[in-house]
């Protein structure tokens, strides 16, 4: 069932705001990791605190989030993550 297929991606960042090394941070400078879950219906991303020495992502330390629904927003221009905060995001969407 295509609905069951999932693709995971990730991207590192050195800080919450864009800076000179945001595109290609060295390992030691990575402070945030963006983890994405994609399905046929949506892309859900959380940008979480990351410890480059322990290689540990802290999913309790969420810096930002993105949620786009493919059908209504195929180009991913309308982030509805914040609209869904406050607990009513389906539990199945959280990593």
């Amino acid at each position, binding site marked *: 069932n295509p609905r069951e*297929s999932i693709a995971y991606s990730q*991207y*590192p960042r050195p800080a919450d705001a864009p800076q000179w090394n945001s595109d290609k941070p060295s*390992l030691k400078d990575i402070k*945030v990791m963006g983890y994405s879950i*994609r399905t*046929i219906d949506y892309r859900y991303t959380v940008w979480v605190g990351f410890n480059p020495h322990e290689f540990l992502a802290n999913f309790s330390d969420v810096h930002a989030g993105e949620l786009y629904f493919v059908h209504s927003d195929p*180009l991913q221009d309308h982030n509805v993550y914040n609209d869904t905060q406050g607990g009513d995001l389906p539990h199945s969407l959280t990593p």
Partner: protein
Amino acid sequence: QDALNVLLIIVDDLRPSLGCYGDKLIRSPNIDQLASRSLLFQNAFAQQAVCAPSRVSFLTGRRPDTTRLYDFNSYWRVHAGNFSTIPQYFKENGYVTMSVGKVFHPGISSNHSDDSPYSWSVPPYHPSSEQYENTKTCKGPDGELHANLLCPVDVAEVPEGTLPDKQSTEEAIRLLEKMKSSASPFFLAVGYHKPHIPFRYPKEFQKLYPLENITLAPDPQVPAGLPPVAYNPWMDIRQREDVQALNLSVPYGPIPVDFQRKIRQSYFASVSYLDTQVGQLLSALETLQLANSTIVAFTSDHGWALGEHGEWAKYSNFDVTTRVPLMFYVPGRTAPLPEAGDKLFPYINPFDSVSALMEPGREAVDLVELVSLFPTLAGLAGLHVPPRCPIPSFHVQLCREGQSLLKHFRFQDSEEDLALHG
């Protein structure tokens, strides 16, 4: 039954801007022709949208959190674990494995050796003209030579009178000729450099994309709700002389719209140039009577933003940077073997306006991942599919974190595929 050969074509920074992915603007007849003989995955995604981490991930079959390569500065065998690679696995199964062009990312992440000797039976080939890629070989409006982002060239005038991907195609064909008489099966990986920046391509390809036909991205503004951490400030293209001259503000620009259209024009022209290289390679494979015994896999390491969300380059989690072309031609399975005298991969000139619209091949819409390349190629070649990795798997040399895609090669209309099912 003789083992099937494998030709793995990896294209640097190629997003699915191709005719076979529905892009009506792009002239990519040779890749479209390959797609019409293949199983094409409509929704394939890279695990990280930047060269070395993506390549090490799919060539080892492990996710970046296992290779622990998020930048360019470590070699997984030293830094994370002694993980086997796809070519290494084929080599250990009796294949002659060869690398042409950019397969592993050069430098530390592949031990300054393209992971030789583990992965390759012979020293990897790198085109000599690659050394000029980022030098001042682009003729500017002032008639001087610059190191520009936009770099349509007269090939006769550039150093060595050739370009890296042309040399790679020649070398790959030379290796195919050598392997034709070999008793061993081969695994040949060909890594093309374009459309990676700089957009340095034979200038005649610009004619395929008159500037008046080039639109902006459908959503060229930075979205209001985009968290700043998610935005990629495209610092690499800003280093190029022609972009520097625009005096753009950091981090959001924007780039003047006429220059945005020129970037898009040159990316598309680079794609059509790349298509001719793939066309020559596949035509030679058939001329050497190897097309009936060779699996062809075609993909890229990640996509590229062409102005969407006010972004350029890769370096993000957006679909435009993570989604990649992925297709597999399997002789006699994704397409019937050709009748005597028929051809599967005749070269098609993208300048021929009459090149017929290509019949689409088989397609799969399920979301799949590049990390599935390892188990899928192993399975298609009839090798044992490596076991799934335990978590964690740093101590495990051979395993895979991606699903095998073999289930997608079972086509309703052909009972012989049940064999694959078995």
